[in-house]
Each structure stands twice: as C-alpha cells, then as structure tokens.
C-alpha cells in the first residue's frame, strides 16, 4: 500500500507545484487533468473504487473539456506576475492553510485502523445490515441511494442549480443550428467517431444500470452521457449524431430532479417515509424487486440531471464563444 501511495503522493505534490509555476493556462488545465488522474488512481488504490470512478470521469475528462472551452474564449496566458509582496503573502497564506490541514490530519485515525470510530460504529453497521435493509448488493449504492437518499436528492438539486446559475450568468446558448465550421476534415475522425460514441453509450448504460450491483452508477453514467453528447459537437459533426439542444438539455436536467423527487413523494403518498423504495405502489411484488426498481428510477433521474446540466454548461460556454470571435449563426 505505502509503496503505491507514496509515489502517487509525490506525483500529486509535483503536479501542484508545477501548476503554481506555469503561466500558460492551457498547460494549467492539462495539469489539473493530470492531478485528477493521480487522485483517481490514489482513490482506487485506497479501495474507494466508486469515488475513483467519479474523479476520473468528472475531474479528468469533462471538467477539462469545459475549462478548455472557457480558455478558447479568454486570453490563455496569465498576465504579469504579482509583486514580490503579493507572492510572499500568497505563499504565506498557502503555507498557513497547509500547516492547519496537516495539523488536522494528525488527529485522523490511521488508514484502515480497526479501532477508529468509523470502523467500530458506522462501517460495520453498513456492512452487516445494508443488504438486509436496502436489498442492494453494492453497499456504496445502498448508502448513496437509500440510507442517504435525501442527501443525494439535494446533491442532484445542487447540480441542477449549478447549471441554472451558469445559464443565468452566461446565457443558455443558441444550440446546434449555427453555421458549422470544420477546422479539420479528418477522414479518421469521421470514420471512428461513430463507433466510439456508440460503444461509449453502450458502456454508460451498463454503468447506470449496473450501479445497483457494482461500482459505478448515476453520477458516473450521467457524466459519460454528457461526454457522448458533447463529443460530436466538439468534433463539429452535430448532423451525424443524436445531439440535444440547449433547451432539451435544460429540460432533461429538470426532468431528472422531478423523477427523483417523484419517486420520493410517491413512497410518501402511500404512507411510507420519503424515498422508501420498498413502499412503492408499483413494480414487482417482492420488496427486493421494488427496491431495485426504485433505485434504478432515481439513478436514471440523477443521470439525466447530471448529463443535462453538463450539456447546458457546455452550451453556455459555447454561446460565449459565438460572440465577437465566433462564426455567425
């Protein structure tokens, strides 16, 4: 374990130091992606496969795409450095925060410590009871959608709020009916994009559907769905693929939250607690089947919200690109 984590931590520190050093913002975005990749590998090494998965798809793929879109709009070079005093103050502040964080970390139990509070109370409870309580084989999914279903519902609303804020501040975008600019007529791209997007979509459906049983689920699958919808736009080939416009994307995000909240309220209507999937009035007769159906429904809702929000944010940033610099619509 330590042999794997130590080099990863060193790489992490190196990437952050380099991130502070580079002046080219494009390089900074690439370094951020590298940073996320290393964090994802670290999570996987520490056994948190679900989190690693999310970090890999969100941190190192789609946020890189969105940040690069932003850089296409602004001047990708940092302006002149601050004065020595400013740099000194910034370094001091960073060092101070670092000291506080390290000091706080000293109070944490060692990784995998069996006597620590999480290992003596929370983890054993979930490990022993999650299958009986929620009938969900994947403990992480059981915690995410069942024990803390309300938390996840609010998280989904937060994602939607982020997209709404982006639309309100920057604009919702004009969609795909613009003049198509083809920066490179690449035979390889046109031949390979279709199969790649098809396999990506096949995979993301597996990720969403199988989140009940194995690592993965709605947040990861939704991000991959957003990727598969954005890729044709990035490749300037919107005509050949299923591409949703900015209005549909926003509607998708809202419908996702409605599905999630609807499942929760449905279980309340029949006299059970909010988001108690065992009490759903429809679906299979046995409780396990109803719980699987409820989980699947909210996973689909979350995936729709995540994908719709990300595509909306993409359109917001892209609509900025169509301003004075971009082509006419």
């Amino acid at each position, binding site marked *: 374990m330590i042999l794997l984590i130590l080099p990863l931590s060193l790489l992490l520190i190196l990437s952050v130091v380099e991130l502070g050093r580079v002046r080219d913002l494009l390089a900074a975005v690439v370094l951020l992606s590298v940073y996320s990749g290393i964090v994802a590998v670290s999570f996987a090494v520490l056994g948190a496969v679900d989190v690693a998965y999310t970090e890999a798809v969100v941190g190192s793929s789609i946020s890189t795409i969105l940040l690069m879109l932003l850089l296409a709009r602004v001047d990708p070079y940092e302006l002149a450095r601050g004065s020595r005093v400013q740099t000194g103050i910034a370094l001091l502040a960073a060092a101070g925060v670092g000291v506080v964080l390290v000091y706080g970390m000293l109070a944490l139990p060692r990784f995998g410590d069996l006597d620590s509070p999480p290992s003596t109370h929370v983890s054993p409870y979930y490990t022993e009871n999650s299958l009986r309580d929620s009938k969900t084989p994947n403990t992480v999914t059981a915690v995410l959608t069942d024990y803390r279903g309300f938390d996840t519902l609010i998280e989904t609303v937060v994602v939607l709020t982020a997209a709404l804020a982006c639309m309100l501040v920057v604009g919702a975008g004009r969609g795909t009916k613009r003049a198509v600019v083809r*920066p*490179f007529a*690449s035979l*390889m*791209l046109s031949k*390979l994009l279709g*199969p*790649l997007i098809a*396999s990506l979509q096949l995979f993301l459906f597996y990720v969403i559907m199988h989140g009940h049983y194995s690592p993965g689920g709605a947040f990861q699958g939704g991000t991959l769905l957003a990727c598969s919808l954005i890729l044709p736009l990035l490749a300037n080939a919107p005509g050949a693929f299923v591409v949703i416009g900015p209005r549909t994307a926003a509607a998708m995000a809202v419908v996702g939250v409605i599905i999630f909240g609807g499942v929760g309220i449905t279980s309340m209507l029949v006299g059970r607690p909010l988001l108690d999937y065992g009490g759903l009035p429809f679906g299979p007769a046995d409780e396990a089947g109803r719980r699987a159906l409820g989980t699947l429904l909210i996973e689909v809702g979350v995936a729709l919200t995540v994908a719709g929000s990300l595509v909306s944010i993409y359109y917001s940033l892209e609509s900025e690109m169509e301003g004075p610099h971009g082509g006419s619509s």
Partner: protein
Amino acid sequence: MTDLLGLILMISGLFFLLIAAIGFVRLPDVFCRLHITGVVDTLGVPLMLLGVAVYLGPQLTSGKLILALIFLFLTSPLVGHLLASSALQAGQMPAPGTLGTPPHRPPKPRTRMKARPSQRVLRSKE
C-alpha cells in the same frame, strides 16, 4: 509459466514507457514528441495490459483488459493524428534539424562530382 510470461511482457512494456519518457524530454518539437509518445500507446501500455492479462490468466478482468487494449488501439492513432493536424494548423513548425529533405528538392549529393542518374534527370528539367 504464465506468471513469468506476464512479467516479461510487463517489463518490456515498462522499457518502452521509459524510452517514451526519455524521448519526450529530449526531442525538440511537437511532432517528434508525438512520434515518441505514440510508443506509449502502441507498445508501452498495450504490453503492460497484455502482461497483466496473461498474469491473471483466463478470467473476466483479463477480458476487460483486452477490451481496453482494443479501445486504445482505436483511439490512439486518432488522437495522434488530430493532435498533429491541430498543431500544424495552430502554426507549430517542425524544428529546423528535424525537417529532413523536402520532397520537391533533390537531396544534396555527398560529393559534387558524383551525382546519381535520378538527380541528373531532375536537373535537366530545371
């Protein structure tokens, strides 16, 4: 036996990764660097994946690794091609020493007296 074979594959993959890293630092321009990082995707990582798959033997994980390998072989040439063409469009030029001889100009003869027949033909056209 499969252990040993897997290890050999992984170590040879590591060797190509090392070569690529050295090349990436030492080569002068974008195109040369793309050329050497292509080794990562065509030999380095595939050999590692194949090594792990052989090491694990026939099971589900090995199948996933082979699938990853196939996707790598699909995407790597595409990405290399797109990066090179974007770099060229963005105004990146090959470094002076790496240009080689442009195809429209006959290569300089080593000794001026002995020109090969093909060059004579080209010169007579001028």
